[in-house]
């Protein structure tokens, strides 16, 4: 694996993400998304309200970054943001980290213990008959 020395941009998302603020935020992000192989981290710690336009904006950012062989990661999502992301099942499309620092570090090395993932499942004895 090559050593990654490209810059990582961290942006904090606004407290309320609706159609208007999402559009403004997207406009602010566009210069970073149009660079070669962009690496972005969106800090969701301040987000108190996130609506469909906000989720769509996140997906647009991810798609734009992916088109240019870059990546978008989310950091420190608030409880409200977590609920919306889970409800829309979009949380599985992103790497989500506890802190922005971890998210930035994850671009240069794999940090499994800092990822937010619910992977544990109930052990069922009936599975043995598979």
């Amino acid at each position, binding site marked *: 694996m090559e050593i990654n020395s490209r810059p990582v941009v961290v942006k904090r998302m606004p407290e309320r993400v609706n159609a208007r603020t999402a559009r403004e935020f997207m406009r602010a992000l566009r210069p970073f998304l149009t660079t070669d192989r962009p690496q972005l981290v969106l800090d969701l710690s301040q987000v108190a309200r996130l609506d469909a336009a906000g989720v769509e904006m996140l997906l647009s950012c991810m798609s734009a970054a992916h088109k240019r062989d870059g990546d978008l990661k989310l950091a420190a999502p608030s409880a409200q943001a977590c609920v919306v992301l889970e409800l829309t099942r979009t949380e599985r499309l992103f*790497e989500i980290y506890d802190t922005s620092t971890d998210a930035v570090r994850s671009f240069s090395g794999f*940090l499994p*213990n800092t*990822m937010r993932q619910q*992977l544990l499942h109930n052990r069922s004895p009936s*599975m*043995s008959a*598979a």
Partner: protein
Amino acid sequence: MDIRGLVLINSEAESGTEPNHFGEVPLALVDVAGKSALMRTAERLRKFGVGPVTAVIEEAPTISVRGLQGEPGLTSMISPRERFWRTAENAFNDLVQAGAEIVILIKLGCYFEPDFDAVIQSHLDHNCRVSKLSYEGLPLEVFCISASRRNDAASLFRTNLSKCRTDCEIVEQNGYFNPLSNACDLRQLAIDILTLQTDTSPAGQQVKPGVWIARGGHVEKGARVIAPAFIGAGACIRSGAVITRCTVVERNSEIDCGTVVENSSVLANSYLGAGLDLAHSVMGMGVIANLRRGATALISDVKLVRSLSDSAAPNFLSSAKEFVRFIPRQMWRGIFGARVQPADLNTTLHQTSPALGKAAGYEAPACNAGAADEFSNFVAVRPHGNQ
């Protein structure tokens, strides 16, 4: 010092447990992140200077020698069920004849990562004939046997490892342990390997942090692989597919366009159809075991799930046959096929779905929508979902 390994895999389960199989293949032979538990055990033994390793595997129609090749220093022997323990004893004697001074005997079973150096040192320090490993007080079917003590070894093999002629010294060991007794454990092993909880690692190259792709693994443009994930040798992730949350796609498997695979294991030589959503499951050999629901489903529709062949030629022939059959059928339908007129809303609402129909003894209308008679613009919608 000449220390060799002997690994046994058969269909006998430990007392009180069910046989650890998935689709008739012992779990110890199922690939997890590129290598089976057998291969990982052989790799670990080699790391501690134990080798060569001989594996004695009980014969089964689903086990091919081809799938057991590829691990250096590992020789596999397939034995019929009735002669399994005799073959194991002969294999032990062959190792002794070849000059082994100590033999590490492991019955898989569980996947365990002990410190073999400490085990051998303890065995030598206590001048034991046979030492047995335990994990958190639970005795395991892992032994360290002095090669000169053939009679002790013979007594072990003749009692299916349940009893030894002399008292075994118990050596308590810590390290990663997975009972590997069902599909849940298989999935847990995949998660633990991908999240680096084990000493062993995915058998591929880390192309970006947390994403391992083995030689020949292919991710098409437009597909998204989210770390941690593993794509096996010769596996193909088609455009628009999403691989996420500790998913492993084993060798020669194919995930078709637009399918999302979340927190799942796709076993070797499996095809997962287009536009599906597989989550919290182990899939392979035409079977899907959902771990959240604790249910196993056998899928017979080959458009959804099917097994692929190990070699490329049968897969190519199968695809070509499908294509050749598809083109004339579509042309025939296009030219001569009768166009189906969509039924009007009122008729549709009063009609029983053929899927529910008489076979299920259900003859009531699909829904009692009397309102449809009164309101011409009435539309029945599902209260939830996006359909």
